[in-house]
């Protein structure tokens, strides 16, 4: 009958020893070659390696920090769930909230830029929020037909007209919004 001892011929009391060490910090030199110590999760798992393949003992001296070691199949989360949650984590980041001020309004508002698909939705939302109309946008003349102009402060601290750059570039560079009114607004556009 095969020996039921996991560790070859010696008693190897270390197997039942309760230790305070983190998983993976071991003094494995005493383990017999060809024997795996199943109590310790394997270290520094590469994407392609499988746990304990071939029954050979992996060299256990160089270790990544144990908490970052990835054991195949651990934690026991369904792979469908793992794949779908991680994808979501990168896509549904917390909202991009920016302050919106309107000249003459007593207090500011905040909106989440990520909920809008593009400029039309954003401008519609601003119009609803502050009860004004924004006029028609053209590259040459800015917003025509209204005394308001939507502007934003970009990463460099400059005040820019909303609508000039592609949407994705806009939401990553916009720090705050300001709806300018009156003569200041007209000064931004090329037309009067």
């Amino acid at each position, binding site marked *: 009958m095969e020996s039921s001892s996991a560790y070859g011929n010696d008693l190897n009391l270390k197997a039942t020893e309760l230790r*305070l060490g983190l998983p993976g910090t071991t003094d494995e030199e005493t383990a017999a070659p060809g024997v*795996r110590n199943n109590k310790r999760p394997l270290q520094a798992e590469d994407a392609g390696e499988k746990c304990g393949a*071939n029954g050979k003992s992996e060299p256990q001296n160089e270790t990544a920090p144990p*908490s970052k070691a990835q054991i195949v199949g651990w934690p*026991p989360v369904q792979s469908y769930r793992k794949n779908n949650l991680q994808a979501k984590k990168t896509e*549904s980041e917390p909202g991009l909230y920016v302050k919106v001020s309107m000249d003459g309004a007593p207090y500011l508002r905040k*909106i989440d830029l990520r*909920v809008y698909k593009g400029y039309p939705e954003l401008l519609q*939302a601003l119009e609803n929020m502050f009860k004004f109309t924004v006029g028609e946008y053209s590259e040459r003349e800015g917003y025509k037909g209204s005394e308001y102009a939507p502007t934003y402060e970009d990463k460099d601290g400059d005040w820019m007209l909303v609508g000039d750059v592609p949407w994705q570039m806009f939401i990553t560079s916009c720090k705050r919004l300001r709806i300018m009114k009156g003569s200041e607004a007209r000064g931004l556009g090329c037309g009067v």
Partner: protein
Amino acid sequence: MNYFPDEVLEHVFDFITSHKDRNSVSLVCKSWYKIEKYSRQRVFIGNCYSISPERLIARFPGLKSLTLKGKPHFADFNLVPDDWGGFLYPWIKAMARSRIGLEELRLKRMVVSDESLELLSKSFPNFKSLVLVSCEGFTTDGLAAVAANCRLLRELDLQENEVEDHRGHWLSCFPENCTSLVLLNFACLKGEINLASLERLVARSPNLKSLRLNRAVPFDTLQRLLMRAPQLVDLGTGSYVHDPYSEAYNKLKAAIQSCNSIRSLSGFLEVAPRCMSAVYPVCENLTFLNLSYAAGLQSIELTKLIQYCRKLQRLWILDCIGDKGLGVVASTCKELQELRVFPSDPFDAGNAAVTEEGLVLVSAGCPKLNSLLYFCQQMTNAALITVAKNCTNFIRFRLCILDPIKPDPVTNQPLDEGFGAIVRSCKGLKRLSLSGLLTDQVFYYIGMHAKQLEMLSIAFAGDSDKGMLYVLNGCKKLRKLEIRDCPFGDAALLEDMGKYETMRSLWMSSCEVTLGACKTLAKKMPSLNVEIINESEQTEFNLEDRQKVDKMYLYRTVVGHRKDAPEFVWLL
């Protein structure tokens, strides 16, 4: 000795619905066997390799509803290579050929090809219900065939499958005169959906009770769908992102308020937190809430929502809810029976947001709790003992401490006593998953007290064969045992070989079992299939008997070796 004509007995048997009871009925005498055989409509097969399609059809020619499970449970965690098996096609082929009047098919962890879906759709004119859970191997083309050909389709339920999306218009394949849909769940599909077809389909399905959308269905479509289906009982939203100050948002609020039958809510695969207030009116009647994929919601939004859910019975949530959030659950959801807390970041144990404290709070506040799946950063014996005192009704208790073999952080002891308290207190426990630092002692307790236990999952636990033997000897009702990375070896495996005939299956991977012992077992027990999964280059002949096997899966069967095993699976 039959005092009644067959039709009367048959009528009586109609009232006997549980599989176990019907199995017992068929053992009473020959004529009961015969009547039961021809009147049996629902069959459950927990391991598709335990019997063959032909034997099934011969045994139950009146089969209408079939449940089949394929791969072992640990396949969910990438421990079973692709192509291991579990193919649907042979079953469909055999049933089609024998003119079985199949109406319902429920599959779990099976490989389902488009070909099999197509054959299914064309072979069974009364087919009504298709439920696929954790399956793979099919594309939206297969779904198109089902949609187009199953004229009486009532349920199409796709739960967490890996589906290759060919962006075909499978939804448009439902014919215009198909009005029978009751359940439509395509939340797991990744691709675009023909929104107009979806709206038309929902509009012409007056019996639709359950609708779960995928991420491609935007907010405004959701609003229109709800307007057309205010009778919905179960809703899974797709993308839930919109400007909360817009007209569309107000419309959705109004639409949701007219849906006063909704009892089950899920989805929020993409979510703008500020839009959640629209669902508050639905919360007070909810019995099931699944936010386990709503990675965009933080603890504060989750707790705000849960505060309205006073009638909740089942809650699936991410661990970002935190211990405090679980406290809100404990004080609000007095009817709670099932709680599942999933890790929002499975690989970074340090960030896990729930500990033993959250679990203790829930156990104290929710006395009806009977089913638990809890991923946490740490657990203490004291907490488990308290939980055992508070909740004696557990049927399912699955605890996963993210850092394996972690001891009780307060006492640095193994968690033997804590789990011991659970099995001692919860006399009806049927399913148990262990984690943390554990010695043979916990298995002693399990063998001694867990007399109703049917399924046990063990990882990185125990000291010696004694552990496994305590379980095999003590748990008389054990059906499924799955073990990974434990020091259990040949002595434990071979001590009571007859035991495995009373079980569905045994999985052992990265343990101390040798090839020789597996061969011995296979030779002595012809009623078992002993399979070795070997992913190295060594062949069966190079590996010596005394070498350890990496993965062993054995199961009872009445049809011997399967014919579809791939090269890396050795059938001993």
